[in-house]
């Protein structure tokens, strides 16, 4: 041992400077942390704002009010025999063109959407008596006019919009069709209902398969499995499945469900099965954690008065773990709802203009619809893509929000 050291002089200048330096470092470090948080949040905000900026316009559409003198139009329809087929045979697209030209001028045909005649059809269907009088019908504007009316159009279209505005026939309103229609070729006419229903059916299949299996597995592994090689393999499999890239599940779906089992291509059934394989491990892991967090003292209590192991689990452990399991399930389902890549592999990327009727019908899902629209030629699709993204995000955020709420609400400190 060397000579005893002098007690530290905490008041010396050197020590004071040192401490000041240490506090400065402390502040810098804290600031770096704050910046990291803010930067991450800013990115999220930027993303959301961009999507909103582009997408909100997608929920509206421009309409042109056209006065239609039905008796004078080249329409050959008997007001007393309006059937779908009669309407289909009436060559409405041509009639619509004529009507528009008559009302707004020779070049006006370009201004309404190519599918504007459906508005005419719907008006006649709603009230066949219309055929005997003059009536104002609101026809959806073409993409060019629509964009120009929203301030993003070409110069010609803007000139046309000016003219229409002067005539007072242009109006912009909420686009109900966007929520009720399906995929289409004309951006003013497309909607998300088909894809949304496809998503719904797919999620239904996913949930029906992954939830029972996932919970059963979690219960077995956490409560009953003895530690042996088989449990080890199951555990390793599940942990690994949870980390397998989603596209690999797509490959599995393609080569097994489609090519070996010959299940129908593009169907929600196969999509749901593929996503179920992906979601199951998430539920298992969440379920195990939830079960694990039920304190052993509850099990002891039940066992101690003579409950069987199965009763212990079904009477006590599962009800207590349920919020945790549900949280995990919602998170897993949210992930599945946003998943795109594996579904591309099994052909859920086709153009399908009618909503699927069941789980074996060809369908697409919201994220894939977004992907498809993002590749569309017409510029009108940009805002529709963003609008669809907004819808998807609302759902996902709601699901995640629900999960967070559940987690906070039922978070127990035993």
């Amino acid at each position: 041992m060397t000579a005893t050291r002098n007690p530290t002089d905490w008041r010396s200048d050197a020590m004071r400077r040192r401490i000041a330096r240490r506090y400065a470092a402390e502040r810098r470090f804290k600031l770096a942390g704050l910046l990291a948080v803010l930067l991450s949040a800013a990115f999220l905000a930027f993303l959301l704002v961009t999507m909103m900026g582009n997408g909100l316009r997608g929920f509206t559409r421009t309409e042109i009010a056209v006065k239609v003198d039905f008796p004078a139009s080249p329409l050959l329809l008997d007001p007393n025999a309006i059937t779908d087929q009669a309407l289909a045979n009436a060559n409405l697209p041509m009639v619509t063109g004529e009507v528009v030209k008559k009302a707004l001028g020779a070049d006006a045909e370009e201004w309404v959407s190519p599918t504007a005649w459906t508005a005419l059809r719907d008006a006649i269907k709603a009230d066949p008596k219309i055929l005997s009088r003059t009536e104002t019908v609101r026809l959806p504007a073409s993409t060019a006019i629509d964009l120009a009316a929203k301030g993003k159009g070409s110069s010609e279209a803007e000139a046309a919009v000016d003219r229409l505005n002067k005539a007072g026939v242009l109006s912009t309103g909420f686009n109900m069709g966007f929520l009720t229609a399906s995929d289409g070729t004309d951006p003013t006419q497309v909607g998300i209902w088909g894809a949304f229903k496809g998503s719904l059916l797919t999620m239904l299949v996913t949930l029906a398969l992954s939830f029972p299996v996932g919970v059963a597995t979690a219960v077995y592994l956490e409560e009953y499995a003895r530690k042996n090689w088989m449990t080890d393999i199951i555990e390793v499999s599940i942990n690994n499945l949870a980390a397998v890239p989603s596209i690999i599940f797509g490959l599995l779906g393609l080569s097994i469900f489609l090519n070996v089992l010959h299940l129908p291509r593009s169907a929600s059934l196969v999509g749901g099965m593929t996503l179920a394989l992906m979601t199951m491990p998430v539920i298992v892991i969440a379920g195990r954690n939830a079960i694990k967090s039920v304190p052993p003292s509850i099990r002891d209590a039940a066992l101690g008065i003579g409950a069987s192991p199965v009763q212990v689990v079904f009477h006590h452990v599962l009800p207590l773990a349920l919020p945790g399991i549900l949280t995990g399930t919602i998170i897993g389902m949210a992930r599945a709802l946003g998943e795109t890549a594996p579904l591309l592999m099994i052909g859920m990327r086709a153009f399908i203009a009618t909503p699927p009727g069941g789980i074996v019908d060809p369908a697409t899902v919201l994220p894939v619809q977004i992907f498809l629209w993002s590749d569309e030629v017409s510029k009108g699709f940009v805002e529709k893509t963003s609008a669809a993204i907004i819808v998807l995000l609302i759902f996902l955020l709601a699901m995640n929000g629900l999960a967070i709420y559940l987690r906070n609400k039922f978070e127990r400190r035993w």
Partner: protein
Amino acid sequence: GCGQQSGGAAGGTRDQIRAVGSSTVYPFATAIAEMFVQGNAGMKSPIIESTGTGGGMKLFCAGVGAQHPDIADASRRMKKKEYEDCQKNGVKDIVEIQIGVDGLAFAESNKGPGFKLTPKIVYEALAANPYGKGPNKAQTWKDVDPSLPATAISVFGPPSTSGTRDSLAELILTKGCETDPAMEALKKKSEDEFKATCTRIREDGKYVDSGENDNLIVQKLAANPNALGVFGFSYLEENKDTLKDVPINGVEASYETVSTGTYPGARPLYIYVKKAHMQAIPGLQAYLNTFAANWDPNGALTKRGMVAAPEAVRKASAEAVKSLPVLDGSQLK
């Protein structure tokens, strides 16, 4: 459960039309699908997948039955090899219908330098092995032709499964290649070698294979003023505000030049239908009729950027829709 119903025997059921193939035809096929649904009350919407002409042909020729598509969309004619493939798999009676014409358009961003190209330039810029003289060394357009700017060669184009790519090879590259007389000799010597020399595209990143989505190419071009893009004429039409045409041999791609065939990149568009499916799949005939009703010069398809076929061709096609003549494989190349 479902496997037994739809798989197994070829019967099964499908009440929706299924079409696959060309991304060039895709917008027209979907537009027709939409009109078909609106014009035929109670019909389900056809399912249309854009796989590229080649990919579509493979699916189409895989067999007859519910799990195989009814229609193949094509931006070039069916190849002999594909026809034989079809025959081998029991797809015997095929009906060929030309629906219109398209131009193989070259485009650049509005901010681009204003290229002027010839097939020869394109060939020398893009060939893997120009005139069989070893790997392509051209880095900038100027290396190919002194009149062009010294910007790096960068062409976005469709992949090998696409009919557009085949058209590029046939209509432009081969023409450019044939400007060298030595190639004539080569063609006589070995067809295969000639094909490889004249159509194989370089793979060193100068030609960027951009997938089936022509729209992606459009977006990338808009963002990249020094690049060129190759795609269907309709895409150019739709994006006139961001892109401009690059003339070939001094001819601009326009409705007139394409329809009259003066534009070197003009090519026919087809759909192929399985005759065996005509009665099995509800609405198939009506779908074809809808096509026929809309391919006139002032029809709905031209509004979407398709170029109408010459009058005579349209007449023949309309006749084909009615009588459904079986394609004779011996005419194919």
